């Protein structure tokens, strides 16, 4: 039981990593990017391809893929999202869904249906672990993933708080028109935010590839996990997303104890239970987390 919870927390580290970019884009631009999961899988394939071709460490390949994806995010914002944001709240959903279909099928066309993994490329890191008193094993890769998620979140918070661009992003997220009046170029800010979000997606994709297998159509599941983490944690806060991701990972691992299919079912059920609390019971509680749920934007 304790072991399952510890493993769930570590799994939550990965969900936090993949949810970060989704949460960030939603917070700044009010866009839920339906291609988010597919972009993470695309990143995993890019890292895998570079690793195979150049025989380098996936971590090194990641350093190449992060700027590529960031540039992709900038282009995505300029070429697609800017335009779709202008035609109302529904259009970004439709256009990003179209992009997801394109990415998934192009990946299938290029790489076929085989499942891949980066695990063979990182040596014994994929299975090395420490044993805690009480027989609980802590995988080093899992811990590294959780650490990366925390570093990413802390980094983003510091960036938003102390840098000029971070301030511009916060101002634009708060009120785009007023930010424009203060001399902020909101289009450039959005493009920068999309670049940051997709840079984080590249990191998430790398860890996806190292900790498990992936295939061209794995994007939908990644999107759903990321989205569940964001909603469970209460939208609008990166720390909330980390909390939600860990709750999701723990629920899934406990569900798997009940039934082989329980892994996914428990995660989805937790998602709906949290929604029910948010909509029907939030008024009766006053704890911080419940309040954070109530604040969740429409």
């Amino acid at each position, binding site marked *: 039981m304790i072991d399952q919870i510890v493993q769930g927390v570590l799994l939550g580290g990965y969900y936090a990593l993949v949810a970060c970019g989704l949460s960030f884009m939603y917070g700044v631009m009010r866009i839920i990017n*339906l291609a988010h999961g597919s972009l993470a899988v695309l990143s995993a394939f890019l890292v895998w391809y570079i690793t195979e071709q150049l025989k380098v460490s996936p971590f090194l390949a990641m350093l190449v893929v992060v700027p590529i994806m960031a540039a992709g995010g900038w282009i995505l914002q300029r070429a697609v999202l800017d335009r*779709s944001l202008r035609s109302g709240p529904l259009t970004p959903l439709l256009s990003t869904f*179209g992009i997801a279909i394109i990415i998934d099928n192009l990946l299938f066309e290029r790489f076929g249906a085989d499942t891949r993994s980066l695990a063979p490329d990182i040596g014994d890191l994929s299975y090395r672990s420490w044993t805690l008193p009480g027989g609980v094993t802590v995988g080093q890769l899992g811990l590294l993933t959780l650490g990366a998620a925390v570093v990413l979140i802390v980094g983003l918070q510091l960036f938003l708080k102390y840098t000029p661009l971070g301030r511009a992003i916060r101002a634009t997220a708060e009120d785009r028109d007023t930010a424009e009046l203060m001399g902020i170029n909101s289009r450039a800010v959005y493009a920068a935010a999309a670049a940051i979000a997709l840079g984080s997606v590249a990191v998430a994709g790398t860890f996806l590839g190292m900790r498990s297998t992936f295939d061209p159509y794995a994007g939908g599941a990644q999107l759903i996990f990321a989205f569940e983490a964001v909603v469970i944690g209460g939208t609008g806060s990166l720390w909330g997303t980390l909390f939600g991701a860990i709750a999701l990972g723990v629920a899934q691992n406990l569900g798997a104890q009940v039934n082989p299919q329980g892994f996914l*079912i428990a995660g989805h059920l937790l998602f709906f239970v949290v929604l029910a609390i948010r*909509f029907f019971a939030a008024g009766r509680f006053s704890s911080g987390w419940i309040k954070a749920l109530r604040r969740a934007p429409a």
Partner: protein
Amino acid sequence: MTDVRAVSVRRWSTVSIVAIGGLVGILVILAFGPLFLGSYLTDRITTLFIYVILAVMWNALAGYGGLVSVGQQAFFGLGAYAVIRLSEAGVPVYPAMALAPVIVAALAFALSPLALRLRGGEFAIGMWVFAELAHLLVNLDGLIQGETGRSLIALSAFAPDVRRANNYWFALGAMTIFLALVFVLLRSRTGASVQAIRDNEEAAASVGVRVMSTKRTIFVLAAAGCAAAGALTLSTLITFQPKTFFSVQWTAYMIFMTLVGGLGTFEGPIIGAVVFFVVESLFGASGVWYLVALGATALVFSLWIPRGIWGTITARSGVQLMPIGYRLLFRK
């Protein structure tokens, strides 16, 4: 100031009377389809009817209700699953197909208080999560045995030709019923309410629109329509495989058809379904590139041709075939 008496409001026009007459005429001719179409075409046209139902339902939800869902495959799959379950429980197969949408509609009604409080993208993916959950729970059913699936054995009591003609008439009947329901709904008070909610929920509520019950009507209707399409698809495929029926691809098709035909128009999704049907017949066999092209087309339409084929035509020409809106006329 224009004198108020100098204007009048009209719903029907000569064009729309001709169009409705034409539509009814086409439906009557189609009703005799199996007698002259031959087995291949009968099967294909049955599929077209199913596509029309799917497109019209997704359009009712998104184009009129402003509710973009990526999880309509939930109701599609549950409709097929309900037929299997009812049939195993001893209900004759065709009554089971008629009953399945009703059961799924009741389920959608139960889900609506939770689902309809989600807005925008949250609703979109929230419905997808629901579809995944429905898929997993159906997999747990001992009758279905995970991805092994189950066949609709009761259908084997009918000769292939009889089955084919029955499928055709059932699909035609379901399509006619759902088109009529959407037509009546859009002309009623609910039609105006639901479009007001789509355009601005708070403003609609402030002028007295009952937001929740209006959204629920359209949500439940769309669920029933998708369930009917799922039941019909099962009757053509015979085998129920959860993976096929709960695939997000169904929703991708719905989005494609609606976007291409014209989001938020009555005629648009019908045209979109015909376009999709033709494209699929021509290129469906080319596999992955065909799917890439579908995604790219959806992207292009959402960005540059947001009104779709039919919306663009009406905007240019002012023609309105279906008497759904209102027309303000100034007297000379």
